[in-house]
């Protein structure tokens, strides 16, 4: 079951909206927000350096905006890939963007680390559809490998 979620978006209003929706979806979720890819990365680096630090919670899901200044979503993913925190291996990353450009969607599809593409604004319906089916699938996969 999902416990910890990280939101990365430069737009604070979108962060707010997404956070509220996530809370509505499941009020017990731990949600952490970052307004840039950099700050999120340094958080993960800290986790890498001090794996036993209690404060750092390993996210089950990262929702990542694409269009951000300085470091966009894809650039973040590249950096994220370089981290070796074994704890992060199970983390699923979703692109959460207002872009409907086919270019972005295809790029996200081809990104190994990206599990899906969700168009903004985030709604409870979208979350349910996406996450339950994806996490359900993972269970199926798990059964298959057994």
């Amino acid at each position: 079951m999902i416990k910890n979620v990280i939101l990365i978006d430069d737009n604070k209003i979108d962060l707010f909206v997404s956070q509220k929706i996530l809370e509505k979806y499941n009020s017990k979720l731990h949600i952490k927000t970052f307004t840039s890819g950099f700050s999120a990365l340094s958080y993960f680096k800290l986790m890498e350096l001090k794996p036993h630090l209690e404060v750092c919670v390993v996210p089950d899901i990262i929702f990542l905006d694409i269009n951000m200044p300085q470091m966009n979503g894809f650039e973040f993913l590249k950096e994220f890939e370089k981290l070796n925190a074994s704890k992060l291996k199970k983390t699923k990353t979703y692109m959460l963007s207002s872009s409907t450009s086919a270019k972005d969607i295809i790029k996200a599809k081809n990104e190994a680390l990206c599990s899906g593409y969700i168009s903004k604004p985030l709604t409870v319906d979208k979350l349910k559809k996406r996450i339950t089916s994806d996490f359900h699938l993972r269970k199926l996969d798990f059964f298959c490998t057994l």
Partner: protein
Amino acid sequence: MGQDFKQELLKRYKNNHLLVVGENSMVSITDRYGRITHASDCFCEFMELTKEKIIGESLKIIESHLHSGEQYKELWKTIKKGMVWKGILPYEKNKITYYLDTVILPVKDERGVIIEHIVLYQDVLSQWKTNRLSKHDQEQVLKSFSHDANQTIYSVNREGDIINVNNGIDGLGISIYEILNPRYNNEIKKHIDSVFTNKRVSKVKITELSPSGTNTFFTLTISPVFNNKESVEYVKLSVKKYFDVINTATEKKPNLDKYHTVFKSTQKESLVLTDKDGIITDWNKGAEIAFGYNKEEVIGNHLEVLFSTQKDKSNLRRFLRGKKLYYDSYKEKNLIMTGVKKGGKAFPVEFSLSYYQNGKKGFFCAMLLDISKRRNLEKKLKQKKKDLELFLYRSAHDLKAPFTSAEGLLNLIKEEPINDKVKLLVNMLDSTLERGRVLSDNLALASVISNKKEELSAIDFSKIVEGTFQTLNGMKNFSSIQFQIDINQTNIFFSNKELLSSLFQNLIQNAISYSKPVSSEHMPRVRIQFSQYSDRIELIVEDNGVGISKKDISKIFNLYYRVNSDLVNGNGLGLYIVKNIVEDLSGDIKVSSELGKGTCFEVALPIT
């Protein structure tokens, strides 16, 4: 009758000056008091009076000597002195002023007393008008020229007046010089004169430029026709088509001198003349400026020194050969080649070549235009277009972000406990935002279209339909519409997938947007029919929605045009995009509609 009058004149005056009187001349004889005693038919015709009425009348044209005009005073002074008067007299008839080129000859008796005057007139203005034959007439004459089987033969007197034509009346009554290329007038005149004096057949080659730009060569054969006194009465002038030559820029200037001046002074275009082997014989100022060689340096070289690459040089040689062999049928567009300046600097030139035959000697005329400026502008334009497309793309996408944020916030507000008034406002805000979002979507789509024109891929149309339905799934009214789909694709074909999908999507979107609501009598329906032929595909999207009135149908493809802004949540971009795509794919779109009954779009796209 005219002949009689001439005989009469000849009988009475064995004077030489009367030889100038032709059958079609306007002549009158007045006594010393100015009363008309004789008048030629032509003159009567001009005055619009019968001979009987004219004779005995005073000559209206010159009677106004009492008139204070300087000219009349001078006229009377001259003729009273017994001298010849020449001048142009105005004469008003039916409110039109005619100008008569008039000669008044005094006739004296043995004692030297003036007994009468012979007055010769020529209507200058009308003649001037007939001189300016309309284009149509010229074309007619040219046509009769060109008719090989019916060779035209003109009978012409020494002055060049056409007195008979073998095939109908084309040109009858006017001068031969008015129907032939004026450039050859002097030459033809010389030839006609020589036939009259030498009594031998003479031939001359002329060209005619038709308004369509074709230059036709004709051979004029001038042969004498003798009277029984063994002197030449008139000449027969036969015109025979020689051959056609496709017009080139130079032949638009019939005057050789003019052409020469133009050739020499043109500075923008480089004109280079070469002999039949491509050796440069002359060039103009423009070529000197463009290529930087002196005339002395370049003459004697092959034309290929002006070109940079080996490929261009061999192309040029092939080009010269082809032109020479087939110069009347060898048509091609201007070539873009790489020219090279004296110092070795290359620059793009537009190159065209014409071949002429001057007697047995052939020569080439090459036109070269330095297009580096144009090239640069084209490049800049391309870049600007790209920038603009990117700008459109970026702004359309950037525009989306605030819309989606607002939508998210609204979703949150809807979850809050709010009263009905606020709820109403929120709903209105919601639909406003929806419009903005669709608009930015379509703008983004439009920018994608201009970006992706060239990409081709194998198309499976049912996949496109599938994709479209998935995209439009969430649209209002979508589920209430009955779709009737008939796809008849026999083979895979190649086209631009992106364009085709958005074309289809927009048409379906349009059909859904303009559907009528479901009721007991109405079932909204959209029929989609796709058929493939060997050379084209056809797509029909027909709905039974609100339809378009006749008045509006011409406007539906305009940017930001909406038939009914209250009813529909459109933004006026959809059909504009459709039209653009159809144009980009060089297809055709037809629309038929009846208000209240529905609309049918038929798209045909060529495939290879």
